[in-house]
């Protein structure tokens, strides 16, 4: 399956650099095809059987996360003293994200409906401290303290990107669902980047819009689990630090990493009211 040729084109247009700058790559690659080597794709072998996870379980996981995030932001926007008065653009930013999230609720529910998946068991009561609705969890004061709010908002978005990525891989073979999840993931990543920038603007200068190594800049166990494995530098068996000569920080930033279903539920479970 040579789908990746189009990926190659995309990456080429963006990163265009003289061939001499890619010296490190040449030893890895067989001689390039002539420029006339069109068309772009070879045939995809259709209908190859692959193990897929139950689409219903994956979509229920996605809806749980979307509900958690949407209700978190909605409640935050109702607080009188949470957002900095001197920076009204911060509140506007959360309104933009919250607006997207509300719309996504119906988007995900429609995906479930079209896949014949029952949404009735999906949780809708949440504990935003991460304490399972019992003793307060590690995200204390998320509705009173702006920086605490931003920490959780960032973690939920970065974690959402990872959860969706895991679902995208596991649900493979179901084209429409894969596309819907990719669309959700892209918007989630836009949100995550902006939320990370907000934290950086509020004193955490080391937080970049992309994830450097596995650092979320949030010191509790839930967050550590949410970012564990983000520091991967091996892609498809290639050590990209070695291949490109770029630093491991840059390589870790260049790829977001998926989280498997068990890992996602373990984190979500902290926020579900039981």
């Amino acid at each position, binding site marked *: 399956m040579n789908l990746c040729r189009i990926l190659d084109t995309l990456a080429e247009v*963006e990163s265009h650099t003289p061939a001499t700058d890619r010296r490190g*790559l040449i030893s890895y*690659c067989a001689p390039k095809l002539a420029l006339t080597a069109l068309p*772009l794709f070879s045939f995809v072998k259709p209908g190859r059987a692959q193990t897929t996870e139950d689409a219903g379980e994956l979509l229920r996981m996605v809806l749980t996360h979307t509900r958690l995030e949407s209700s978190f932001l909605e409640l935050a926007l109702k607080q009188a003293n949470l957002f900095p008065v001197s920076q009204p653009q911060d509140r506007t930013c959360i309104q933009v994200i919250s607006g*997207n999230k509300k719309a996504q609720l119906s988007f995900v529910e429609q995906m479930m409906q079209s896949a014949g998946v029952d949404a009735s068991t999906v949780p809708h009561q949440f504990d935003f401290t991460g304490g399972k609705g019992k003793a307060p969890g590690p995200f204390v004061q998320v509705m009173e303290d702006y920086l605490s709010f931003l920490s959780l908002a960032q973690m939920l978005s970065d974690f959402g990107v990872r959860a969706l990525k895991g679902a995208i891989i596991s649900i*493979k073979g179901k084209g429409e669902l894969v596309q819907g999840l990719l669309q959700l993931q892209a918007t989630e990543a*836009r949100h995550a980047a902006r939320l990370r920038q907000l934290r950086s603007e509020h004193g955490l200068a080391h937080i970049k819009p992309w994830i450097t190594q596995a650092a979320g800049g949030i010191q509790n166990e839930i967050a550590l689990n949410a970012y564990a494995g983000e520091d991967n530098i091996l*892609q498809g068996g290639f050590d990209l630090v070695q291949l490109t000569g770029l630093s491991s920080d840059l*390589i870790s*930033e260049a790829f977001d990493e998926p989280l498997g279903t068990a890992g996602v539920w373990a984190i979500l479970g902290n926020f579900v009211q039981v």
Partner: protein
Amino acid sequence: MEILSHDQAHAALFRAVLRSEAIGSLSMDFSGIDFSNRASVLNAARDIKDLMVSAYNGLGVYCSDSIHLGFIGKIASVEARHASVIREMLLPNSFADVSIINPVSGVDIARSPTDALMLIHPYIHQKLNTDKLQLA
């Protein structure tokens, strides 16, 4: 600079994976961009990034190989992070506003490979096509 490095890493991975099946070097046509003008450069960067995001989103349905699908997912979200940052450089709070996110679905768009290539063509001298592409 970081965005460029990330994109170089993406290109490196695809070349390593595709080996002899990778496309040859493309020659770029950036003549439509005024590199002495910040807004012109940022507008082009935004358009290209938003386009990349939509192109990756549209590729999932053609991918029958879970490793390749994994690459699409891993790179697409970093592209979306880039797009978000570049949009903010142009206009505050435009990172995910209605100019790019469908307000009804709340999500990014997905473009078919054919549509995406049509929008890429102004930036490259070669003509590429998707004739052999099939749904997974």
